[in-house]
């Protein structure tokens, strides 16, 4: 009797968990996110919806037009959130694309040539720690144009991890591979195309992934300071407008910024895994 009883009590929880694998999968999210929303709603009740709208307020306040019409365009800077994000993404694409091209080139040079790599290392180490917005005033002074300056800020923020990772990737090419090229006496061009590039790709994509996060970080900040359009501008504009639904608009925009940042990160990671396929 006691034996069978203890057996059931041991197997019971296992059986219960196995019964509902789908529920088991989503349960942590439901519990934690639900808890977070509840906490948020409670805070909002304590502080008053004027100071901090709760999740329900955010949705009801911004449903029309920001959620249901992402691509409305009333002319000027009054555009749907979809447009605003696209404007920001366009700037990021330009600045980040430029940073990738220039960064990989410079990183490659620094990695292949020990003299230059060593000489420039201190410069890179100092400049990479400069916060993105510190570049903004000087780029405004140089370019005299808010849009170009924002792109430059993206560029200068994103370039350092790309340079550093590319250079490290080249320096860290396993000796086995360089030995193969030495024994076969590969020409420099063959060496670069057959060994350096494939061996460095994973490192480069690590750099690109860090860089895209930084770029997205920088664009929102730069647009808040000085820009026409873009998601950062939208946030700052909503704050300045000071309307009833401003807080809700800002919160919605923040959620969109986060989602887009995540998507960018995953996109680069996925591309990297596709490009480096077969390697490592």
């Amino acid at each position, binding site marked *: 009797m006691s034996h069978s009883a203890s057996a059931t009590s041991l197997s019971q929880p296992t059986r219960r968990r196995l019964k509902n694998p789908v529920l088991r999968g989503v349960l942590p999210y439901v519990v934690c996110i639900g808890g977070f929303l509840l906490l948020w709603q409670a805070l909002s009740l304590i502080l008053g919806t004027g100071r901090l709208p709760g999740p329900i307020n955010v949705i009801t306040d911004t449903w029309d037009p920001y959620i249901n019409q992402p691509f409305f365009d009333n002319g000027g800077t009054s555009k749907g959130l979809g447009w605003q994000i696209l404007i920001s993404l366009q700037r990021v694409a330009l600045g980040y694309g430029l940073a990738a091209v220039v960064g990989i080139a410079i990183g490659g040079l620094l990695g292949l040539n020990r003299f230059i790599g060593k000489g420039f290392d201190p410069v890179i180490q100092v400049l990479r720690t400069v916060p993105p917005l510190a570049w903004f005033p000087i780029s405004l002074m140089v370019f005299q144009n808010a849009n170009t300056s924002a792109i430059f800020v993206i560029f200068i923020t994103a370039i350092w991890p790309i340079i550093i990772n590319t250079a490290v990737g080249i320096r860290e090419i396993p000796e086995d*591979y360089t*030995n193969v090229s*030495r*024994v*076969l*006496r*590969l*020409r420099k061009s063959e060496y670069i195309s057959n060994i350096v590039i494939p*061996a460095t790709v994973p490192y480069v994509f690590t750099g690109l992934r860090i860089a895209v996060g930084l770029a997205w970080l920088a664009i929102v900040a730069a647009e808040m300071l000085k820009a026409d359009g873009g998601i950062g501008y939208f946030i700052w504009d909503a704050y300045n407008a000071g309307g009833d639904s401003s807080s809700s608009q800002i919160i919605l925009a923040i959620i969109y910024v986060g989602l887009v940042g995540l998507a960018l990160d995953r996109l680069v990671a996925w591309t990297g895994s596709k490009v480096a396929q*077969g390697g490592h």
Partner: protein
Amino acid sequence: MGRFLTIDDVTKVFPLKDGGHYIALKDIDLEIKEGEFVSLIGHSGCGKSTLLNLLAGLTQASSGGILIDGREVKEPGPDRMVVFQNYSLLPWQTVRQNVALAVNSVMASSPVAERKQIIDRSIKMVGLSHAADKVPAELSGGMKQRVAIARALSIRPRLLLLDEPFGALDALTRGNLQQQLMQICQEAGVTTVMVTHDVDEALLLSDRVVMMTNGPEAEIGQILNVPFARPRQRLEVIEHPDYYHLRGELIGFLHQQRRLRQHRSSVAAAAGVVAASGVVAATGIDGRQGDANALPPARKQGPRRPETIRLGFLPGLDIAPLAVALDQSLFDGAAIEVVPVPFARWDRLEAKLLEADLQVAITSATSPLALNLGLGGRTPWPAITPMTVSRNGNALCMARSLLAQGVRRRADLRQWLLNRGQPLTLAVPELGSMAELLLRHWLAAGGIDPDRQVRFTALSPMTMGGGLRTQQIDGFIAGRYRVAEAVEDRQGYVLATDLDIWSGHPEKVLTCSERWAEDHPGALDALGAGLMKAAERCDDGGQRPELIRILSQNQWLGRRAEIALQRQFDYGNDEKPQALLQFNRYHFDRAHIPNRAEGAWILSQFSRWGWCPFPSNRLELLGQVYRPDLCDRALAAAGYPSLRPDRHPFRLADDLPFDQDNPLDYLKALPGAPEPPVAPIPLPSLSARALLSR
């Protein structure tokens, strides 16, 4: 099939981060014939892979050089393809692309179609056509290694270098691949050098197995010829009658190296110093490191009194370097004070050495080994020899009555003995000494049985002349000084000198306990350095008057020293005296080396005369007793370049080559020698050593 690859005196030193350096390989000499398959075997850290990288040209030798077809290897090249331990395939390329990279870059001038054909053939050769378009990640370890071999052979290298090619594979795969590799190498006729630590693999694949000693300062310990006919089949090889003998040699070598390493580290630990035989600090050798009862590190630096070394010797021409060094103050007075202690009998000297009343002695070249083996019923004692003090200098002196009976040559002696019917009585300075071994060897080579036709008796060298006079003995073998006295006194005449037996043999060596050497490195170095500097003066003919003056002092040879140092050697047989060049040698022609090959000869003679079985662990014994590393330290302290022994077989006067890698064959070839028993010899243990050296 001349020599294809020559490794000439290669030493490889790696700098260390702390400014010192690590000597990985020392004085490697090896010649490899075209088409030969050579394996390098040894414990990890013995520098096998370092040597392979040097052959590949991936690293450069610190000194010495590597020649392939007479051209020096300075950089890697496709004529020397390497198969690395971890395959080194490019993971982002398919099998075909990996092979193609090699073919396309090395054979760029060939037409595309031909290159494609070579690529396909190479992949087919290792049986991977079906996997040609897979990337390495999709292949098993054995398949990857086959790709690496295909890549290496596709460009038809002259030399294939394999670095533990099958180390990471399971036994079944390994067996198949070994068979394949053997076939491929044979078909391609490519010269191959393989690093391995698998004894069976080495025997199956190789024509020769090169066994490396432990690092640091790894060197070639022994070379084994593998005589199995080709093509070989695994089972045929294993069933070959010589297989287990050869396998035993290899395993025995590896065991001995392991024990030697353990032994060295336990001695060093007991002495409280780091065994720094290979790692010499950048500051060089500190000549002032020893202390009477070693060694709290804090005390090493401070000023100290010079260490007293009581050095035992028997007066004779052999100790000339000691006399000169003391007379001309060639010992570093700040480090050591050498007290020479003369003896009249060898057994007394050895007893005092074992009692630690003497720290060091100049003994017969056979003594260090005889002491370790405990010959003559003694307790085995851990002697070492850090340098050879003198070479040659013995002569066989017979009573003049034999000259009257026409005994002028060895053949005469043999005939005379046959007629006489009773054994010859010959005196030796010490039973089992170098002099006795030489005499026995010479007699046996002349058809005289030393055990049945001769009675050996030990006499103090000082009384040998007297023994002739009283007809107690028929003759004696001793140093030149004693012989010259007997000739001068018209008691005896010279029937043979050791130039007739083994020119250049080691005669006297420095002997001390292993523990004392470990505890007093500075003192030993200073002693050796002083003797070496003096030895150079002794070899200098221009210094002869000075040498006579010094040796004529009473504590050495006394007023008759001059007769032993005449330029002409008087045989006392009424023939014209001859000049004997190099009769006594102290310094030149690498005289100082404690040479393990010579030690192996001594061991062979010990067992030849039935004094002990031939030690199956001879390399361990020789490695422990003969210490060229200490010799090198003393040479450095004296400002001489380091010396190294010749690995080639040497010949005594009977012209039979003695190959240190194969002493048993030598023994079998000697006249009348039955095959001696072979047995492992237990070496004196550390506890006994610690007790005795205190």
